[in-house]
């Protein structure tokens, strides 16, 4: 009896993933927001809620269209460039330090205690100092956003590296990989899922810190629009600004999520579908 290499008997067909009817899944998600909008509209129209406190959704939409004709785009451009600069700086530094601390016990001994104590400070507490040191210009805003983006990336990065399956690393040792090759071929790809988790929470924090920075001191940007309109008693403008912020946050996160799906398609993870679904 000789071996017959051309037999692949142990095949296991995989159930195709993804919902059977994606449009139905999406319709489910839209139901609640639509219901809320319709209810609000009718309550305001019926006069049960005063319009100067809670404008009707149709009025907010109208304001938004008006804004889009004028200053909205320059506010968006200002905010977007701040978030982008802060996020890129903060996330890059976070990745750099995470790689250093994650890959080297020596770096961990030197740096980790400092980062651990800095992390304990709520980032908004830095605002007065940042204003004092860096003034009310762009630098202090971008620095604050970078601070917010740094820690999620750093923390998740270190955890991701330290959670790598030791047995995969041993394969690299077996091939005599040096530290650089080991990092590039095994450690970084294996840490990628955790890194993405960090990047996505860093991005959402970046938007949060943007609003904080612009509420405090700005003459342009969506956060400025919020505070200015509150002072001029225009709830419709405030809501319009919130809507734009939500949209931008969702879009930027969607971008990262798309990258994640593309680069991490190899993960063998639970997708929320039970065997009978």
């Amino acid at each position, binding site marked *: 009896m*000789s*071996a*017959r*290499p051309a037999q*692949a008997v*142990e095949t296991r067909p995989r159930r195709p993933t993804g919902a059977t009817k994606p449009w139905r899944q999406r319709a489910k998600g839209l139901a609640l927001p639509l219901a809320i909008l319709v209810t609000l509209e009718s309550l305001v129209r019926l006069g049960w809620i005063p319009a100067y406190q809670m404008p009707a959704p149709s009025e907010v939409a109208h304001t938004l269209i008006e804004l889009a004709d004028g200053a909205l785009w320059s506010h968006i451009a200002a905010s977007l460039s701040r978030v982008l600069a802060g996020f890129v700086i903060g996330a890059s530094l976070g990745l750099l330090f995470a790689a250093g601390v994650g890959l080297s016990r020596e770096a961990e001994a030197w740096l980790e205690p400092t980062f651990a104590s800095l992390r304990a400070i709520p980032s908004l507490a830095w605002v007065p100092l940042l204003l004092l040191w860096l003034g009310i210009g762009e630098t202090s805003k971008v620095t604050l956003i970078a601070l917010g983006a740094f820690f999620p990336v750093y923390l998740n990065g270190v955890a991701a590296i330290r959670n790598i399956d030791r047995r*995969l690393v041993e*394969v690299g040792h077996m091939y005599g990989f040096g530290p650089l090759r080991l990092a590039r071929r095994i450690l970084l*790809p294996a840490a990628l899922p955790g890194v993405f988790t960090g990047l996505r929470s860093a991005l959402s924090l970046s938007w949060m810190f943007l609003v904080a920075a612009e509420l405090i001191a700005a003459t342009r940007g969506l956060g400025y629009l919020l505070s200015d309109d509150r002072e001029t008693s225009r709830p419709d403008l405030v809501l319009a600004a919130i809507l734009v912020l939500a949209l931008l946050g969702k879009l930027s996160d969607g971008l990262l999520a798309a990258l994640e799906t593309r680069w991490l398609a190899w993960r063998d993870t639970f997708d929320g579908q039970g065997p009978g679904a």
Partner: protein
Amino acid sequence: MTALHTSDIPSLTPVLDLQVQRKLFGDSPVLGPLELRLQAGEIVSLLGPSGCGKSTLLRLVAGLDTAFTGTLRQRAAQVGFVFQEPRLMPWLSVADNIGFSNGRRFDRQRVTQLIADVGLAGFADALPKALSGGMAQRVAIARGLYERPSLLLLDEPFSAVDAFTRFALQDLLLDLARRRRIALLVVTHDIDEALYLSDRVLVIGNRPGTVRRELSVPLAYPRDRRDARLADLRGQALEALQAAHVI
């Protein structure tokens, strides 16, 4: 049927010649003293219970563990390793995993040949998550063979697959190793597997792990699992294990 053994062919340099005086885990000795010599193309099994130090011995041979007293007098330049679990990189395709040691510039022709050899034609671009346990272990064997080793180390390679898959994989391994004259050093706790695969079976005793008995299996390949002589040798192996207070 005359049994012709590769071990009978005089060879100038063995593919492995290791002498272990002692190997400690903390203060307790887990291995040694023992000697291990493999000739080119020879198939040797290390048989013993879990915890007897046979996997540790394999790690010493692989160079994954260098903290021991003894000397590695000789070892083939190219040594492959097949672990108990497939240990494939989940982000790489089957082909990329097989050529892993060369990165992106791996030898495509060789990888295609190896994929065909282990019976996975058509799965070159599949990701590990789409493979069954047996298929993944086939990929691991192909990866172990990629660098043309003259010695392949296997650490309980088939203990995680079902009996039928195990038979198929054992035959596949024997076929590949004998065609290329690759020496195999197989760690196993399965008596039948040890006897079916090997020219020699070394029974390893417990704490510290030493060679308690050496059984030679003078049967030609390919072998028949129903061979009465295998059953006879099985009895001897059981006796040896009992004498060594292993069972």
